[in-house]
């Protein structure tokens, strides 16, 4: 029996009020220090909460917004989530179906016995032209599903796929923004017939009737078309169709169907049958059955509900464009930093994996990893110590309004952690009115905030862990 043994999602804290771009509701938007990698890490950690990470032997990252044409994203996610070195890592991309493609591949791998537990992450932060319809449509977010064969909360009953060669929504190697052909063509020749074929194909193959499903979860290019597919195939859109969350989140690309699935699973009960279908140059349809262990997953994570409730509304459109890099920052010379791939690689254990060291002689926890103990001065008596998931409190902080950065003030914090250890780090999602000594914080994986210039000059992206106020 193979299927989902745990789930997690990530919706960024910030929502752009669509009124500022002439639309309705809100859309979830990445902070300036977030991208598809950092969101995948957040969703993966939401999903792995309570799981022994040593048992995971595969990590897939699905995204249409890879940061590199050549360099894996999955390795960064695997390191940041403390997966062991011999974890199989690979990326899925180039399609809005990448999320379900990774899911299907993981199921196949576990079923075939080549893997025991595969973590599927899907994450997207798709670029849209200012003022375009796609800008209103898109949201940012990530999902993570753990696929295994024990304690399975959601079994995969069957799947059916079709392909459809069409230029309806696309972005080539040099495009800055996603493009789309006329909406009527895209829907009538692309989305609708493909979804009909994929979903009805699945139902015929496995002899399902519409009434068999407690919930149908459809990728949809807008707020209405999913309901059209549901009605046409004989589902009751009102009771059976998963709300596509357009008004509160937006279309999150390759992550969208999996995020909506998690939303459906949060409401599901054992015995429920769920139909999941994605779209992108074809369609993947999967039949899923909910089992008893679903109850165990539900409560110890933020999930869709928690993430959607925890939000900060943004109405400053210019700031949004700056965050997306569409409007450049003032070119006042900023901090000059040189980058060394050699030094960076040596420090991944502290920058990507949030590891310090613990002295075997005196037990003192310290960050970054040390060779000589800061407390008892024992030499080379250290073992790695992970701060992943540890909560802390601000010891002291400072707000800097002058140093040029996408967002000011820059908050620096000294954080003391439960279980020991102190980390000096930047703080993100700073609430200037709330920050204070003793404020409880947690750590979040972000694009290294101060050295944006290094990314531009060297073509590399730097990551680091930052503190943030508890997201609850």
């Amino acid at each position, binding site marked *: 029996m193979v299927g989902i043994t745990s789930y997690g999602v990530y919706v960024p804290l910030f929502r752009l009020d669509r009124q500022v771009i002439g639309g309705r509701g809100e859309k979830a938007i990445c902070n300036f220090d977030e991208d598809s990698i950092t969101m995948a890490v957040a969703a993966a950690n939401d999903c792995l909460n309570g799981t022994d990470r040593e048992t995971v032997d595969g990590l897939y990252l699905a995204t249409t917004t890879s940061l590199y044409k050549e360099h894996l994203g999955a390795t960064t996610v695997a390191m940041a989530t403390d997966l062991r070195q011999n974890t199989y890592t690979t990326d899925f991309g180039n399609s809005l179906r990448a999320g379900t493609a990774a899911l299907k591949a993981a199921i196949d791998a576990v079923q075939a016995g080549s893997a025991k537990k595969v973590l599927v992450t899907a994450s997207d932060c798709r670029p849209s032209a200012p003022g375009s319809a796609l800008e209103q449509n898109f949201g940012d977010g990530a999902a993570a599903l753990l696929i295994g064969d024990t304690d399975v909360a959601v079994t995969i009953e069957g799947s059916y796929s079709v392909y459809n060669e069409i230029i309806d929504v696309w972005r080539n190697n040099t495009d800055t923004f996603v493009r789309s052909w006329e909406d009527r063509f895209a829907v009538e020749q692309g989305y609708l017939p493909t979804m009909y074929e994929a979903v009805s194909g699945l139902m015929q193959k496995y002899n399902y009737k519409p009434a068999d499903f407690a919930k149908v979860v459809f990728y949809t290019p807008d707020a209405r078309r999913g309901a059209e597919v549901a009605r046409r195939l004989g589902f009751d859109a009102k009771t059976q169709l998963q709300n596509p969350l357009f008004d509160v989140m937006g279309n999150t690309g390759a992550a969208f169907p999996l995020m909506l699935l998690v939303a459906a699973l949060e409401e599901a009960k054992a015995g429920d049958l769920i139909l999941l279908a994605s779209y992108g140059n074809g369609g993947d349809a999967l039949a899923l059955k909910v089992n008893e262990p679903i109850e165990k997953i539900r409560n110890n994570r933020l999930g869709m509900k928690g993430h959607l409730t925890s939000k900060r509304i943004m109405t400053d459109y210019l700031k949004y464009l700056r965050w997306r890099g569409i409007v450049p920052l003032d070119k006042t010379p900023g901090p000059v930093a040189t980058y*060394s791939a*050699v*030094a960076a690689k*040596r420090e991944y254990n502290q920058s990507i994996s949030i590891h310090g060291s613990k002295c075997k002689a005196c037990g003192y926890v310290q960050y970054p990893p040390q060779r*000589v*103990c800061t407390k008892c001065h024992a*030499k080379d008596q250290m073992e790695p110590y992970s701060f992943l998931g540890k909560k802390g409190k601000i010891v002291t902080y400072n707000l800097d309004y002058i140093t040029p950065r996408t967002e000011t003030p820059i908050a620096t914090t000294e954080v003391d952690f439960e279980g020991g250890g102190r980390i000096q780090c930047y703080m993100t999602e700073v609430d200037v009115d709330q920050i204070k000594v003793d404020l409880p914080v947690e750590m979040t994986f972000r694009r290294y905030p101060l050295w944006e210039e290094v990314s531009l000059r060297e073509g590399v992206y730097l990551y680091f862990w930052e503190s943030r106020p508890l997201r609850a």
Partner: protein
Amino acid sequence: MGSIRDKVAIVGMGCTKFGELWDKSIPDLVVDSCYEAFEDAGIEPKDIQAAWYASRESGFTGAHLSRALKTEYIPVTRVENFCCGGQDVLRNTCYGVASGVYDIALACGIEKTKDHHGGFGLFIQEPLDRGMTEWDIPPASQFGQYATSYYYHYRDYYGWDAEGFKRLLALIDVKNHHNGMLTPKAHLHREITVEDVLKARIISWPFGLYDACGMSDGGAAAIVTTPEIAKSIRKDYILVKAQALAAGAGQSTMQQEFDFLRFPENVAAAKSAYKEAGITNAREEISIAEFHDCFSTTELITYEDLEFSPRGKAPEDVQAGRFTLEGEQPVNTDGGLKCFGHPLSASGLRMTYEIYKQLQGKVDNPERQIKNPKLGLIHNIGGNVGIHMAAVTIYGLPE
């Protein structure tokens, strides 16, 4: 003017393996080199009362040493003096002890050139910004200009053509690579022939690949104390006989009488060191030396500048094998910069490590141990043409 002669002793030294140490951080090299020195001296890290830390590109401030070693609020000064950094850091430490303020002090020099893309940059970044109008030339040309001058001045006397001059220089490269083969901590271990040197690709005439030193990471450290304390620690401590440093003031590039047949900074540093050490005939009195062989002609000209060879006669000594392991005055017994590479702020201490071990008779490979050396000399030269910085240090065993 006073003298430091016999006032300061070295009682412990450490030196890491040099090479492309991808896995070693700056703190790793500090810990590895300093702990070898602590163990060699039989002292505890807490016995150190003050420290000096040399780094050109590997960390500003002395905190790079204190944080790695977890010293408890002792003074640590960072020293930067380009190629002389590793020697100058020890010089400063020696004065700290000679002043009577500190009983036991630590000198450490680290450089990780291989953290930089491709190693030591062709042009070296200045601290903070500059107008980009000051003339700067690549390191090979800094020294190559002296090679050109030397070649033109002496070619008729020695009957050289271009290849003949390169063959002479190749003898220095072959010697150093041979010595490096016998040195486990060296970066490059490859026996080469004169033909190899001649066939190698040109870097900057007359320098081919083997005329230039390697590029590496490394670190070294020394424990400095008073002769009185040294006696209580070990019998075979070594004594500072002279510590000289000479800074050029642009004379070579502004005054017409400078001929580029010598490094005036070398000459000045040697003169000062020999006076301090009471040496009247360097060719006879100095048993063994480590020279700055960034490029082969630097070693060649230094033989003359430091009076190991009479002016214009170094080529004859090189051909006679005077500076080989078996010769009368071995130079770069460990393979020099050619085989260790040149992590700037570590080199001077690494060279001191070799002299220290040679004087003690404790070289890590007996095959390159020189018999009963009395006085050992360390030399470095760095910086830019005209404003070179040269360091000459001399050590000896206690009477």
